[in-house]
């Protein structure tokens, strides 16, 4: 439930956010010798998905900046009043910057940011700072990775059908499904993506059952927008191929795991804390992707044929170079009607409120 709103994030969210962020440069500030940074997590660091990726980034930040940064975190923080209490406590404890890493922490962060003008706040996946000049927003373009997965899927599938274990029909997830299918369609025009909604971000048993159901319906490639490695394990068991989510999940399915979308928050965290050290921190609102290193692909499985590797790598390279954008027209919707004309690219604002499926998606 909580996590639902966490990712709803982008959803209604950032669309408005992008319009509303002509942030004035923050007041002049001096650099710091050391920075105390705190992180607020919605899940356990052991979820091996969303929160795990954030925590790995925190450790990486410590490694990058050494003695100049001191970090702490609070995990399993429920969204709502409890979050406000935790964030306020962290601000009072003398932290210089607080990263709140779930959509539902947005309003509590806004409130606390107002009360502590000297502390910096960074909220992941929200859409507004409530006018606070000491609060920034950040998010990642995960759909760019989905396009790589779709390319691999279409190249390797024999049945021409992928199974998509999805959480909730919100724009973030819809965008991912569409990116996957569009990329697959470019390889195989008849490619189909069958979606199963499990109505949860994290429910290993149900994710595994959904995977088995999809495999029994003829899908031979599995991809997921849920957080546990269970779909990978189920795919491994059946000899199908699959992809990891949020982190490299190869250890769970050494044969099935082709690659994974890896959330790399480390460069962003390092950059922001460094800015604080230098005295150049300003409130920002960023939606970064592969080019900036915030979305990465896990190493390709050695079992993957060379031509597939090359095709996948080309998507990565072209995305980084800015010459590949999966949401480029012509794009047809499920009824076969052209939604995006030839040569046109879907604007970011429209992606963030996407509520229709492209041709070939069965949901």
């Amino acid at each position: 439930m909580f996590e639902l709103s966490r990712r709803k994030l982008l959803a209604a969210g950032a669309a408005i956010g992008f319009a509303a962020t002509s942030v004035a440069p923050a007041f002049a500030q001096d650099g710091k010798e050391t920075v105390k940074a705190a992180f607020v997590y919605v899940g356990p660091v052991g979820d091996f998905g969303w929160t795990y990726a954030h925590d790995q980034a925190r450790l990486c930040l410590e490694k990058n900046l050494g003695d100049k940064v001191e970090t702490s975190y609070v995990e399993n923080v429920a969204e709502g009043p409890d979050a406000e209490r935790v964030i306020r406590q962290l601000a009072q404890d003398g932290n210089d910057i607080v990263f709140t890493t779930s959509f539902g922490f947005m309003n509590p962060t806004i409130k606390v940011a107002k009360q502590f003008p000297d502390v910096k706040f960074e909220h992941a996946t929200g859409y507004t700072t409530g006018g606070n000049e000491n609060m920034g927003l950040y998010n990642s373009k995960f759909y760019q990775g989905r396009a790589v997965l779709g390319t691999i899927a279409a190249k390797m599938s024999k049945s021409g059908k992928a199974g998509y274990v999805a959480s909730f029909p919100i724009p973030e997830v819809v965008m991912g499904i569409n990116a996957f299918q569009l990329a697959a369609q470019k390889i195989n025009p008849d490619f189909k993506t069958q979606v199963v909604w499990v109505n949860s971000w994290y429910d290993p048993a149900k994710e595994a059952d959904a995977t088995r159901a999809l495999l029994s319906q003829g899908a031979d490639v599995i991809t997921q927008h849920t957080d546990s490695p269970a779909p990978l394990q189920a795919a491994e068991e059946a000899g199908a191929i699959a992809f990891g989510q949020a982190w490299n999940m190869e250890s769970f399915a050494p044969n099935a795991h082709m690659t994974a979308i890896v959330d790399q928050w480390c460069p962003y965290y390092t950059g922001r804390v460094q800015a604080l050290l230098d005295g150049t921190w300003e409130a920002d609102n960023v939606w970064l992707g592969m080019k900036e290193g915030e979305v990465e692909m896990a190493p390709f499985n050695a079992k993957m044929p060379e031509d597939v590797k090359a095709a996948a790598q080309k998507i990565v390279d072209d995305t980084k170079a800015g010459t590949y954008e999966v949401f480029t027209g012509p794009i047809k919707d499920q009824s076969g009607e052209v939604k995006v004309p030839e040569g046109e690219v879907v604007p970011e604002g429209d992606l963030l409120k996407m509520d229709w499926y492209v041709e070939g998606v069965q949901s």
Partner: protein
Amino acid sequence: MLIGAVTGFAVATTTGLPVLGALGAMAAAALAASIFAFLVLTLMANQVATGLALTIFGTGVSALIGAPFVGITTPTFGPIFPEALTSSPLLRLVFGHSPVVYLGLILTLAVAWFLARSRAGLILRAVGESDTAAHAIGYPVLTVRYLAILFGGAMAGLAGSYYSLVLTPMWAERLTAGRGWIAIALVVFASWKPGRMLAGAYLFGLVITMELQAKAAGFNMFAPEVLAALPYVATIAVLAIISAAKRGGANAPACLGKSFRATA
């Protein structure tokens, strides 16, 4: 269940033997149940409140124990029947399961026999139906209840280890996603009768899988949320039918939830 899941996983990965994992899971969960037993039987704490507290405790403890085991894989049970028997989908339906599944079926039959046919089972039921009468005849009410709770704990542990060793062979916090509660619903659903319990378990399983199978087959007459609600709708419907048919006779043991203090 979570304590069982994490212990089973920990033991199985450490020793490399899933059988030891399942046994460890049962032992650990029985240990947790003994805390519950001590609280509600000896100290006579409220059973419902203690049960809820134990659930929260188990979630936390399992996360703590499991922390070093996140992100690794475990050996799992191999098939027990020869490959020839699992070649066709129909045969797989009968022979293609993990040993734990067959063990579960055997245990259900054993428990049914125990409750209905054995002397000890009759004593157990007497203790549940009328603690004072059982005490008056000279049965050790508390001892029997202790043993029953420990057995229940061990079974929950075994169920938990099925998650971490068979269904999704890994450990992650809150792995069972609250599915243990279905057991409580099932007991009410089955009105404390093992045979109906087995049928109910399969019915629940069927409805839960149907939701996903229907979606995977592209059956989208209803919104996914409607399909997801099916198991719960089915539960309410069956409960309503049962209680209407039996005029409210849910068949619960008369002393359910009551503490017992020996007098005289």
